[in-house]
């Protein structure tokens, strides 16, 4: 089933509490070389038919408008996965 993947991350300058908590836990369990963790979102858009360029363009528009909020997040990638 063809998919379009949208990857979203919290903005660099905002605190990512999830990432910070995971980083602390990793540090406690001995992973001293991992200096930071940030957690974002991967959203899969599934299609029953072949994905067209128009679908990809539409997905990019949705990623920028509805799937993310540009005040707090960045869309880092939108791509087709076979």
């Amino acid at each position, binding site marked *: 089933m063809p998919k379009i993947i949208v990857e979203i991350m919290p903005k660099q300058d905002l605190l990512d509490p999830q990432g910070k908590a995971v980083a602390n836990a990793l540090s406690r369990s001995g992973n001293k070389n991992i200096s930071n963790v940030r957690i974002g979102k991967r959203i899969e858009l599934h299609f029953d038919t072949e994905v067209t360029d128009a679908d990809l363009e539409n997905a990019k528009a949705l990623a920028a408008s509805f*799937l993310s*909020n540009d005040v707090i997040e960045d869309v880092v990638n939108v791509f087709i996965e076979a």
Partner: protein
Amino acid sequence: MKIGVITYPGTLDDRDAQRAIRLAGGTPVPLWHADSDLKKVDAVVLPGGFSYGDYLRCGAIAAQAPATQEVVKLAAQGLPVLGICNGFQVLVEAHLLPGGLIRNEKQHFICRDQKLRVENNQTAWTNLFDKDQEITIPLKNGEGGYIASKETLKMLEAENRVVFRYLDLNPNGSMSDIAGLTNERGNVLGLMPHPEHAVEPGFGPDTDIAMRSGTDGLKFFESVLKALVNA
């Protein structure tokens, strides 16, 4: 005067908002998120809660609801709209107000009686307050930290669009202590604290006079009724 209150899946404070409208002298009209018919109401309240379980982002899915989209249309024509807490998040996600709301600075859900300063008493929902009046209403949120770009903050200050600021303590790390703001026209107001929980003696915040006697929230709803009568 009919004031609509939209209920989304996950809304909590719709009944309290309806009650507040009734106590102020208006007629509350329950509205359903999936229905684009706003039943010819004179104003709309987007109440607090956790619409759609805060999925995707707080308020993001509710912003797409048929009822909200109709609110966006009518707000441009001057319909008074009040977004409380999750309703504020919906207004921001629907781009009726600028900026965003993120998790509280110290990561905790906060519930307290919060002192605010009225910075702008020219909006549809604050015209019965005095400028710089200090009021106390309950605050209860997990994601109430207001953020916006430097340019947006500058614009909000220059246009006097910050309506409420947190006093004594900034509970959630909001930029410039912003608790609530309005749109250019002054008909749309969004704020994190809950005026609908401070409308009846015996059930509001404590005051110097007596326990639970605070009713500062009632003025929000009386203000909009006054604005509608004068319109």
